[in-house]
Structures are given as C-alpha cells and as structure tokens.
C-alpha cells in the first residue's frame, strides 16, 4: 500500500462546499493507494464538468479533454500503451449525454479501461439543467414544466450490451465506494462504475438524504454473473436502489486480441530500419 500522500498535489478543488465530489476524490486516492498504483503509471482521462475536474486534484497523468469524449481519448491511449492504467472520470451529462455513443460502443470494444461516472443527475457546471439521468418531473430553468423523459438507465444499457463489469456506488458510503473502485480497477476489462453523487447546489431532489434512504448493498447471495437477474436488478430505481457489482463477466479484452500488441506496447514498436521492398513490389 502506497502512502496516500503521494497522490496529493497543490491544486484546490473548485467545488461547492458540501459537494459529493469531495468524498469521491478522497476515495479515489484511498483505492489507488490500497492498490499500490504509482501516479506515474496511471493515466486519467476526463471530459468537462464538475466531476471531470476531479483528476486535477490528485497526482496522476492527465488528459482532460472535451466534454463527452474522454472515453475515446482513453481508448486510444490504452491501445498506444496498454501498460498504463487508464481511468475515465466524468459526470453523467458528459458520459451518458454528449458521450453516449462512445459509452455504448466502448462497452462493445471491452478495452481494459475503467469509467467512473459521478452521477449527480444534473448538469452541475452549466448551472443546473437536467441531465440524461435526471428523474422525470425535475424542474429547472430549461425544463420549466419538469423533465418529460424517463431517466437514462446506464446499468441496464450496459448489461444489454454485455458490459464486462457494471457497478454502482454512492459517494456517501466511502467504504463501499473504495471497494467498488478497487474491484473495477482489478477487473480485467471495460469496467463501469456509476457513483451516485449529491449536487448540493442544483439538485434539490436527489439529496444526500434522498440517496441514503434508498440505497442498499447487494449481499453475497446476489450473483453478478447472471445476466438476466442483473437486468432485473438494473431496473430497480425508486424506493430502493441497489449498490454493488451488478453484473460482470469474463469477456476477452480488446487489446489481448490484437496481434499487433503481442510484441509489446504499440508506442514501443520499431519504426526505423525497416525493409520496405515488399511494399514497393506491390507497385510494380
């Protein structure tokens, strides 16, 4: 276990006091330290939003890219250097809204990277519009009559696409959250961790209280390898909200199926001193 101090830097979080993001940040450092992951072999990718600022607040390599596109950046980086631990950390709007297409297609790819979503069911940074996961009826400055659409169910969609690892946790339960982060990181494959995170400023519906009253932990009797059961679990959202590993499987990982990476990471492939005469022959 690495000293948690190695993750500290001098950046000051620009979050509101009391925001659920602080706990996620602490848990992240905790999980990394428990797993002995040295900052210099960790690459965080993030998009834009309050959540997406998180990786600035601890020591790691970081590509903080565009809103909604971080999974793609991470996928490219992981293909280029599969020795890095690549984790995407962003918000619900980022990953399920703008980034929806990359979310679904990277589940299919099953690159061994991790996606942590701070799901506060709102667009925080842009001042409180509905996000894809906002509950129906929530009123905002844009949704003046309340949200019409039912919320996007990332867990169910991930299971429908046979995602390799799908879990949910809650920023108000650090112990659980740390264990979920560790499971996601140690799982081999594309691992999705949806983290319920209260936004104390804009989301007056899904408060700490609201979540705390509803979340319950899946216990050992639950079998996360049963896809149909997992789908049923995924539909639970209301008075009771399950947290824990909801589904997982052992699908082969993308980069292990690439012959091209058998000789080592792509970025280390030799590119000079190559004999091209066979290619030149094609043009004769």
């Amino acid at each position: 276990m690495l000293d948690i101090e190695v993750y500290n830097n001098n950046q000051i979080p620009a979050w509101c006091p009391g925001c659920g993001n602080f706990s996620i940040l602490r848990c992240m450092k905790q999980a990394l330290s428990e797993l002995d992951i040295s900052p210099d072999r960790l690459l965080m990718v993030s998009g834009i939003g309050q959540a997406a600022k998180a990786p600035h607040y601890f020591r790691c390599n970081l590509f903080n890219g565009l809103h909604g596109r971080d999974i793609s950046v991470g996928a490219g980086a992981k293909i280029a250097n599969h020795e890095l631990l690549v984790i995407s950390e962003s918000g619900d709007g980022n990953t399920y809204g703008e980034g929806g297409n990359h979310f679904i297609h990277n589940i299919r790819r099953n690159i061994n990277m991790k996606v942590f979503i701070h799901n506060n069911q709102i667009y925080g940074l842009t001042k409180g519009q509905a996000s894809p996961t906002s509950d129906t009826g929530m009123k905002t400055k844009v949704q003046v009559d309340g949200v019409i659409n039912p919320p996007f169910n990332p867990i169910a969609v991930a299971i429908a696409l046979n995602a390799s690892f799908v879990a949910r946790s809650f920023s108000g339960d650090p112990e659980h959250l740390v264990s979920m982060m560790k499971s996601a990181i140690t799982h081999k494959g594309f691992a999705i961790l949806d983290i319920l995170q209260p936004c104390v400023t804009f989301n007056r519906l899904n408060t700490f209280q609201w979540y705390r009253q509803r979340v319950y932990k899946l216990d050992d009797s639950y079998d996360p390898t049963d896809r149909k059961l997992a789908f049923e679990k995924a539909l639970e959202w209301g008075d009771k909200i399950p947290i824990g590993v909801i589904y997982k499987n052992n699908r082969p990982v993308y980069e292990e199926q690439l012959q091209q990476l058998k000789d080592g990471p792509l970025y280390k492939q030799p590119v000079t001193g190559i004999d091209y005469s066979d290619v030149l022959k094609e043009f004769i």
Partner: protein
Amino acid sequence: MDIKIVIGGEAGQGIQTISNIMSKFFLRSGYYVFTEQSYQSRIRGGHNFTQVRVSSEPVSSPDDGIDILVALNRETVDIHSSETGGIIIYDNELIKDLSGDKLFGVPLQKIAIEKTQNKLAVNSVACGVLAGLLDGDISILERLMREQFKDPDIGEKNVLAVRSGYEIGKSNRTLPFKITPLSQKGRLLIDGGSAVGFGAIVAGCRFLSAYPMTPGTAVMNFLAGHSKRFNIVVEQAEDEIAAINMVLGASFAGVRSMVTTSGGGFALMVEGLSLAGMTETPCVIHIGQRPGPATGLPTRTEQGELLFVINAGHGEFPRYITAPRDAEDAFYKTIKAFNLADKYQIPSIILTDQFLIDSMTTIDSLDVKDIKIERHIVTEPDNNYARHLLTSSGISPRALPGTEGILVITDSDEHDEEGHITEDLEIRKNMVEKRLKRGEYLKEDVEEPVFFGDKDSSIVLTGWGSTYGILKEAVNRLTKEGISVSLLHFSDVYPLPDKTLNSLRDKRFISVENNATGQLAQLIRRETGINITEKILKYNGRPFTPSEIVRRFKEIC
C-alpha cells in the same frame, strides 16, 4: 506516342480489374501510365469508366479524347462513341444492333466461358484483345494473370483467355501505335491513396482510427492491408468524433497516429482539431475532398475545402496544411506532415481529393531509406517537468505518460505550465502567445510553390493540390504553341508560402481551381493582398483535363 484507352460499363462489371491489369501491363512494358477513374456512388449498375493513358513520355493527367474504347455495355458506346477517334471494342454477341466504322466486335463473353467456364473472365479476354491490338508483349500479360489469381488453375485458364483475345486483337491491328517493350526502368505505379498510406507507414504511423468515408477510406484500407506486416492498429470508430479523439489519446501516449476522412467527416472532427490545438497534441488528419455541401457527390472530386480547413476550429492555434500535387508528393508530404506535427506539437492536415486518391500514376522511385523520423520526445525529463512550459520558441518539452517519476498533464481548458486548469488571465495571455509563436516558426518549414514554364511571362496560372499534373501539361502545350505562360503551383498551402508570390506581384494571375469560388485566390488575397480576379473554375465533380485548360485559357487570354 500518347494513347488514351477508356474502359466503361456498369459498376461491378470489372472495369477496375481491366484498367489495373492494363496499367501494370504498360508499366512493365516500360511506358508511363496515368489512370483516372470516374464512378458513381453505387455498387452495381450505373455508368462508370476509367481512362488509362499511356505514353513513352511522362504523363501526369487524364485528357480528352479516346483512342480505344472498351465498352462493357451498350450505354458505354452511346455515351463515349462520339469522343472515340480510334476503335470501340465490344461484345458483338451481347450487343447486336450497332453500326459504324470504329466498331470492333469480339465475342468476349463467349470466349471467356469457352476458356475458363466463367463469365468473369471477359476481363481477361478484353485485356488480351487490347494487348493484341497494340502489338504488345503477351508474356508480360500472361505473367500478370498468373500473379492476379492465387489459384494456379484459374490463373492458367485466364492465360488461355488472354491468349485468345490477344490473337484476335493482333490479327486485326489497324491502330497506328504499338506497345513495343522499352528498356525497363523499375518505375512504380501508385495511386494517391496508397501513397498517403505508405508515407504514413514509413513515417512510423502505427495507429489509425477512422469511420469509413469515400475517398478517405483508401488510406484506411492501405494501412489495414499492411497492419500485420508492420504491427499497425487500425480501429474503425463508431463515428468521426471518436476517431479523432482516439487518435489524440494514442498520440498523447506516444504513437504516431492519424485519421482519414472526407470533408463531411472532418466537419465532425472540428472540435477535436481545436482540442489538438489546445493540448498541443500532434496528429495527422487526411482529408480526401469530394464535392459538397453535405453528402454532395460522394465519389467525385472537388477542391472545395481549402478555406474551411484553414479556418476550422474554435479559437486560434497554428496548423500545417499540405495539399500534395501528385502521388509522389503525397508520399513525402505525408511524412513531412508527421514530422512537423511532432516538431511543433500541432495538427497537420493532408488535403487531397478523389482525383488524386483514385488516380494511378507512374513515378520513378520512392526513397524509403533516407527518410528521417523526428519525434522530438523527451525521454529523460527532469524532475520538475511541466508539459506546457513557457519557452522562447513556444515549443514545450513533450514527454509521454508512463515515464517514471514525472507526470504528463494537459487540459482542454486554459492551463498553467504544468497543465492544470487555470483562471489566471495573465497565464492565459502567455499561453495564447506561446501557442501562436509556433505558427511563426512553422512558416520557415513550408515549401514554396513550384514555379514552372516561361518565368518571364506576364501571365501566371495559379493552382494547388491535385491539379498540378494537368496544369503542367497545359502549360507545356501552350508553350509549344508559342504562348508565353507560367504556372505557380502550391503544395504546402498553410501557412501560405509567400516569397515567390510576392516576387510576382505585378503579374496577371489566373487561378485555376476545382471549385466554384476560387478559394486559393481568396487565400492569396488575404495573405498577400494580390487580387486575382480571373479564374478558371470547375465544379461539376470531374477533374480538369489539359485540353480543357488550354481551351479555356485561350478564351480569356
């Protein structure tokens, strides 16, 4: 000698097979070849055709007129017979009601079935007829057939088909020209798509992500086709936005990476381009232009994206844009694009078009040995490494994530030297200046345009990109006719090299462009003030021909 052979028919009838084989046949016979394709956006049916132009002198463009027409269907005769000066080869058992003196009927399909039990061998028969009519060396064609078919049995059958055709052709020779094998020179026949693809491989590109789009796909196909040989990962993305972002991720992690697309796909990458600009992540973008707006004419050619590409992206950041003048140039400029992207940590854009991508041309050789790969990556950074360090050149040390003991941090938000998000407006100002400074140095790396023809002429034709071969030939012809004219042709287009231009300020310029608004002329005015009011433009989806330029030049001069 300058023979123009057109092969026409429906999509799927094998036009490309015939033209590829014949092009190689002429190449191996020691001739220069230029092969251009006109095809529709469909998989079967319609009307497609290819022109194979053969000459003992270098040729670098298609041209008007047809010496030999190979008509694989009736429609081809109807459309092209009036342009045909020589003869028309067609299947006289399938097309019966033709008449005219140019006609040369051969029961192509009957022979094909006789010799190979397979209709598809009409293509081989037709090749044989062509070679016979031109009195070429049949052994070259036979060898091509054997190479073409993996199954030696089928190969031999097709050799038989070729021979039958050859006999018929040879015994009916009426044409004034002959393909006598010349001393071999080991020249290459290459299309623009392969030239860009091969250039990328030689430059060390090991990751390509793209969403298929004509004509950009050619480069994807080339890299995929060679992916095992060179350990290249070619990843088909779910959309163009994913493609550019994956490429930026891979490049950030240290692999030379590229996307390939067309204007419409690039339109979706514009936000990503700006991201490359902000994070100073090198990347190479190949754009094969086709007529727009929107879906336009997907399989045709145009030069409609020059100004779009130069100005694309929100915010201000430098970029390198090259529009290769031909396949050979495409090979070297692709390598240059990778080197400059790494040197300045900027996006490099290779701007081709369907005409360049799909046309095959003869080149003497490609220098694959003396290529320099310049990565400019810091492998042993010091402890207080900062990815976006302010330096006098504007270029910050680039290290890779995963390097022991340091962290590599970048951000699409404005950031400090370390790469962390900042709201410090003084840093903002410094970072803007740092980013733009690289664009100033980059100006020293762009290549001046080719200046060709009568340099003292008062008239200068200007052009850019794929029109070079066409314009060169047009200028040569005009010169031969005693008309004094010169050509100023740009391959590197941005930053616009302006030394030669400025030295020619007082000349009469005529801009020749494959678009409707004269975009190079607009760019030249913006960068130099030179006002080019005369233009020869074409925007029906087809490339110019030298004859057309000569004619239109004479109309206005």
